[in-house]
């Protein structure tokens, strides 16, 4: 179901006739001259590298295990011993508060969560899970959307009608219900698809859910594009000449669709990262003690009023990543489709 569609219909505008020869070299060339896109790419590289370096940070710099509870731990700060989880001693003496940000890179930079775990270390590890889920689900969306969109657009007729209605159902379906239901169904029954075993702790679940729900979002514009291509002069001519359909698909349709898909990649990544956060609230996704940006926000939510940084930090990281992905997306679109560069 479309809940506050964070990206509405910010669909990249690709014109129908962007059928240039050798678009890749040209695109790369144009891209390399786009300052803001390069800056965005740099930001993303930093995010990815930081996530990859998570074990080094956790192990060497902070010296913590971000995946096990540290309820009795103490740290030394400015010569003072401070418990990681401090029971309140003032007033009624109720409540236990985890340590706040120390702003010192070697110890609890962003403070601890309710299990006494280092938030920064979890944030770095969480980046791995989130980025992985984001990319894998994007791949699923794009492959399925391309398949559905091309089938519907190229063959038309009843295939188109059936596929379009299926997309409608999928788009209007209450995805949270499916998510809740799946999370319960998978509690003690596993889905086995040949060698692939899916249980509820598997990352495959959020990946598939996120991947599938956005298929209509991408498949619709692709269907439109293929429909337009199908009716363009060169395809009509090819059909008239008796060129077999698979040839036409491979030579004339697919290259165009692929450039559209490439434009969708950063956008879908951004969208999927946002969705991962939402699914984490339903306990669907990365399971404890693992971390993703979404689960850290959820853990931080209960600490919002006492330790706001626990949920603010992943929130900010998500915002920066999504902004960077979108700027990159613009850059990629402009690089592939100079007309859309939209200069007067």
């Amino acid at each position, binding site marked *: 179901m479309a809940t506050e569609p964070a990206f509405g219909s910010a669909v990249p505008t690709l014109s129908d006739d962007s059928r240039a020869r050798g678009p890749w070299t040209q695109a790369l060339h144009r891209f390399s001259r786009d300052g803001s896109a390069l800056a965005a790419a740099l930001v993303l590289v930093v995010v990815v590298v930081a996530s990859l370096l998570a074990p080094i940070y956790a192990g060497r710099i902070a010296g913590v295990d971000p995946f096990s509870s540290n*309820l009795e731990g103490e740290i030394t700060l400015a010569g003072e011993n401070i418990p990681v989880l401090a029971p309140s001693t003032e007033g*009624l003496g109720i409540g236990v508060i985890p340590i706040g940000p120390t702003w010192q890179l070697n110890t609890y930079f962003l403070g601890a969560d309710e299990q006494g775990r280092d938030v920064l270390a979890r944030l770095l590890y969480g980046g791995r899970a989130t980025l992985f889920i984001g990319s894998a689900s994007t791949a699923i969306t794009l492959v399925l959307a391309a398949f559905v969109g091309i089938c519907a657009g190229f063959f038309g007729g009843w295939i188109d009608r059936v596929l379009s209605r299926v997309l409608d159902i999928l788009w209007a379906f209450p995805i949270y219900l499916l998510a809740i239901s799946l999370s319960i169904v998978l509690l003690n029954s596993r889905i086995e698809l040949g060698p692939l075993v899916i249980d509820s*702790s598997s990352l495959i679940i959020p990946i598939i859910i996120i991947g599938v729900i956005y298929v209509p979002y991408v498949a619709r514009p692709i269907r439109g594009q293929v429909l337009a291509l199908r009716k363009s002069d060169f395809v009509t001519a090819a059909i008239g000449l008796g060129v077999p359909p698979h040839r036409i698909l491979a030579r004339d349709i697919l290259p165009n669709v692929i450039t559209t898909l490439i434009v969708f990649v950063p956008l879908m990544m951004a969208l999927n990262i946002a969705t991962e956060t939402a699914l984490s609230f339903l306990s669907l996704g990365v399971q404890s*003690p693992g971390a993703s940006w979404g689960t850290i926000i959820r853990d931080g939510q209960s600490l919002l009023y006492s330790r706001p940084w626990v949920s603010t930090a992943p929130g900010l990281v998500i915002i920066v990543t999504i902004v960077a992905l979108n700027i990159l997306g613009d850059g990629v679109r402009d690089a592939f489709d100079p007309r859309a560069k939209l200069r007067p």
Partner: protein
Amino acid sequence: MTASQVERERFVRGRSCIQPSLSIALVALGLFPGLSHAAENRADLMQAHRGGTVRVVAKSAGGTIDPQINYAPLYWSYYGGVYDGLVTFRKAGGTDSLTIVADLAEAMPSVENAGKTYVFKLRKGIKFSNGKDLTTDDVVASFQRIFKVSSPTSGTWYKDIVGADACLAKPADCTLDGGVVADKSKWTITINLTAPDGEFLDKLSMPHASILPAETVGKDVGIDPIPGTGPYAFESYDPNKALIWARNPHFKEWSVEAQPDGYADRFELRFGLTADAQVNAIINDQADVMFDQPPASRLAELGTRFPTQVHLDPQLAFWYLPLNVNLAPFDNLKARQALAHAIDLKAVVNFFGGRNLATPTCQILPPGMQGYKPFCLHTKDPGSKWTAPDLEKAKQLVDESGTKGQTVTILTEDGEISRNIGSYLQSVLNQIGYNANIKSISGNIHYGYIQNTSNKVQISVTQWYADYPAASDFLNVLLGCGSFREGSDSSPNISGFCDKDLQAQMDKALALGITDQAGELWAAIDQGMMKQVPLIPLFNPKQVTLVSKRMGNFQFSKATNTWAYTLGWVR
């Protein structure tokens, strides 16, 4: 700082505002429980504090408003001032509430026929909020209605009434012939049981045994409130907005102990705020009482900045881990003992809000319950209380049990505290040699899900609150053979534990009622159960209630785990 100190602080504040005489203040605080309802003082207090509207906030509505069907804590908290039974727990705070007093009955019943017959004399002159007089017909009809509407407890609490079998089989034609008999000329009600039941009066004090007008429909009324006899009557109910109750114009106080007139004129319970938003609303003077517990992470802030507005009240309840004794690895006694030794209860208590809010416990019965004798079997130095975890012993027991390396899945609900306990449990299980993972599901489904044996839950985190203060409500309900029902979502014996000897002892204790002998027996059963560790007790929680600055005389009834709201005032 203890709760009583808080009370004293509140007293000092109270005096500076309204300056009542010292004795009145002390009475109001319940420091002279025996005198607390002396008529003249009450009249003074009534004059000083009567009136106003109390604004209550809660997360969401609590289901049907029918007092004979609803079984959720939300409305059970508020039925007290609207409906009456033949008897009731005294409307008072703390342990004063534990006494059962006559309510619609003139006096406590005479018990005859070796505990199988109860005779009540009904009070005269009581009217329902619709103006109709209360008669013996209403009482008989209300008991029939328990079965006609398939009340949740009809087959458990009231099954011993003569004729109940037929009623359970065919609810629509329920007569309870020979079970509940009215004598119109003598104005008495006689209830006959098929077997003596030491807890029958407790059960009659519950909302499910409320006396309603005889003409009330024999099905769930849903959102249309039924008239009652208490000082208040429900005015309107919309599960998406609010439940509102105001003074019952036909109410005349007949017993201060059983059903005192209330101070406030009106109560508005609004739904739809998250727990955090409820806390904000009270701090910002937008509401007077929050029904839900404040989130654990707000407690330090509240305890420091608003100590006078926070009330801590011990409850007859405990949090525990049911261990499925029919599934590996916890079908092995040593595996169960190992986990019991390994858990650091101090850490678990901290998730709930620290030692001032929860007390570690190693037994099933909570403090203050009949048969409570403190003991702790699974700790570093076994004795009367928990001291420290014993990881060495735990690891050794796991080794001996031969269950090392097995996979354990912990099932928690998705609330903050449960998830935290689950996460901690996961590290403990991994530490002592298991391969643990954790799943959390929506709190609305969790309790039914973990009860059902076909879901094969090995271990979970849950809690139990007494319906009424009786040992059997813990031991027999949670671990009795009768409450284990395979394949059913309604099987509160989650562990699937059934021990013939212990069950025989429980049956014996049940028949004895509230006697010293029964107390001894329950204490022994408590120990006997814990020797087999069908569940691991964690702690006894305290109720945390946050109220507004103007809320006075907040009293929490220990017997019913509810706020005795007719005693509170906002003026």
